[in-house]
């Protein structure tokens, strides 16, 4: 008797559980980003407030980029409802048809640079590629422009550039040739490659990750490098003898997409609308050096004025930098990267 009732209650519990699962799933979305301190900042700035406001649960995961999305979509096993990517990856993935269309009646796009607003992807934040140098080697007379970085006689020392992000290295190579910041795009790829060729012999390391760039500068393995501003800011905060500025920086955007086949598309759309809203965008620079994609964030009054000057996407700083064009790299990336690899790998 007891055993039978036991089985009954088990069956009942099973029924309840199976009934509860779809209801739960509808209220839970999974968001993937790059991990590390950046994602921790996003959790505080975007994910937590959105989950609270919409009454949903946001689960988090980490991504390696476009390959992961491609694998999930082409393999018919989409586990993410929203994922972050680099803007040129978004442009490429869009061409491959990997993302769901975004509904701009739900998402308010005002305040976001039109270059980062597309049918199936939208900008979320900015990273800048900046020139960093060690002040214990150069004092305050270090290389300030990419032309200085390329000038090995006036600024002797060990150098590092990105080997994995050909787009960024080609952009700074164009700047080194003296091309003004508003003329860099569309990049003259062969010209930029010639420019890389000039400095190639003096590059002691081609970094392949942000952490590596940071380590090279921090340990004094190199005296100057191209580096992402978030990493540069961390080095400075840690007390490393370094200096950098946003002059001639290369502003690269990150974007968010809903992978094609997401099971919670509608809720994901609402959540994404929250992520790009000025209110939540203004939270991001409170935790990390990556600037908000939505300009209106600077008008919310949430960001302290003394903080604004350190943010790469603040209007004052944007003027000093090149905005990397995702649409340009969508069509040229493969060819440019192969040529770049041919040049630097030996």
């Amino acid at each position: 008797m007891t055993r039978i009732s036991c089985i009954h209650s088990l069956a009942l519990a099973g029924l309840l559980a199976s009934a509860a699962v779809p209801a739960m799933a509808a209220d839970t979305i999974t968001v993937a980003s790059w991990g590390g301190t950046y994602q921790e900042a996003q959790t505080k700035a975007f994910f937590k407030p959105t989950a609270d406001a919409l009454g949903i649960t946001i689960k988090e995961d980490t991504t390696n980029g476009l390959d992961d999305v491609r694998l999930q979509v082409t393999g018919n096993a989409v586990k993410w409802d929203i994922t972050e990517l680099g803007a040129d990856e978004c442009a490429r993935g869009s061409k491959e048809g990997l993302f769901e269309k975004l509904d701009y009646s739900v998402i308010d796009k005002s305040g976001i640079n039109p270059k980062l607003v597309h049918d199936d992807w939208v900008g979320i934040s900015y990273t800048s590629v900046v020139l960093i140098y060690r002040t214990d080697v150069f004092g305050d007379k270090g290389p300030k422009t990419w032309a200085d970085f390329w000038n090995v006689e006036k600024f002797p020392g060990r150098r590092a550039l990105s080997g994995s992000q050909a787009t960024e290295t080609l952009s700074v190579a164009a700047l080194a040739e003296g091309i003004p910041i508003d003329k860099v795009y569309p990049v003259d790829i062969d010209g930029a490659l010639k420019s890389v060729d000039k400095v190639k012999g003096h590059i002691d390391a081609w970094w392949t990750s942000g952490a590596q760039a940071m380590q090279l500068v921090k340990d004094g393995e190199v005296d100057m490098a191209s580096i992402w501003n978030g990493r540069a800011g961390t080095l400075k905060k840690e007390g490393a003898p370094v200096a950098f500025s946003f002059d001639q920086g290369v502003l690269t955007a990150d974007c968010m997409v809903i992978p094609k086949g997401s099971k919670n598309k509608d809720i994901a759309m609402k959540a994404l609308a929250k992520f790009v809203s000025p209110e939540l965008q203004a939270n991001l620079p409170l935790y990390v050096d990556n600037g908000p994609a939505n300009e209106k964030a600077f008008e919310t009054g949430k960001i302290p004025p003394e903080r604004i000057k350190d943010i790469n996407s603040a209007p004052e700083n944007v003027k000093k930098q090149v905005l990397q064009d995702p649409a340009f790299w969508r069509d040229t990336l493969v060819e440019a990267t192969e040529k770049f690899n041919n040049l630097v790998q030996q």
Partner: protein
Amino acid sequence: MQSARFEDLGGPHGTLNADALRADARRESFGLLALLSPGLLLVFTVIIVPIGWLFWLSLYDETGALSAANYARFFEQASYIRTFITTFKVAFFVTGACVLLGYPLAYMLSQLPRRAASICLIFVILPFWTSVLVRTYAWLVILQRKGLANSWLIDLGVISQPLPLANNFAGVIIGMTHIMLPFLVLPLYASMKTIDTDCLRAGMNLGASPAATFRQIFFPLSLPGLASGVVIVFVLCLGFFVTPALMGGGKVIMWAMRMEQTTSLYSNWGAGAALGVVLLAVTLALLGLFQWLLGARATGVWSSR
């Protein structure tokens, strides 16, 4: 053969018996095959099918059409050939360094008393259990421009300028040798332990000097172990990723790193798959070559015994 033997016995009973025996043998081999089938099925589903699929994928280009574009790329872009040469150069140097360091080490271990040998062996195996990533970063800390090695050497006045030990070819070789060493030492040590000391004593007894005993008896007998160690190290090197990625400073690009780059660069899996197929084919060809070269040597050693 068998049936002929039975027929020799003559008589109808013999033939009947032969048939029954043959049926029995057939039943037994089917039974064995049935017993093997879970294993065969596993090998088929987890090895043969995915590799076949990989090969199949490599034949499709970005538009999804059948083409050889993924293979043609290796000849159009010089960097792929360079990567290929680098990969073999690294594998060759690392294997060489492992033999130079590992052979004396394994010899010493095999000559030590059992207890001392097992303690020393722990020092060989211990790093083996530590994450490759951790060990690679440790080497970076030691070898870089302002690392331990350079600062000590400069403080001691041995050198005035830091030696370029990290973020280049030398760094990759040092880091990888450390990781690969146990793969050479362990099989070599095992084979050295099986060498019969009576053979060595006999050699000495017949008037051979210790050096001659080593050269003419011990060394040839240790060759099969050395051969298997060399093959393991060389093949593992060909597919190595972490250490060259971190220690090479972006200047030493190996095949596996190229696979990673290619997979994320191209929208079709075929581009990366083709690199995998090439590496697999080359590795298999090499294994065949080793088998042919070293196998003959090894059997030569065993038959002369």
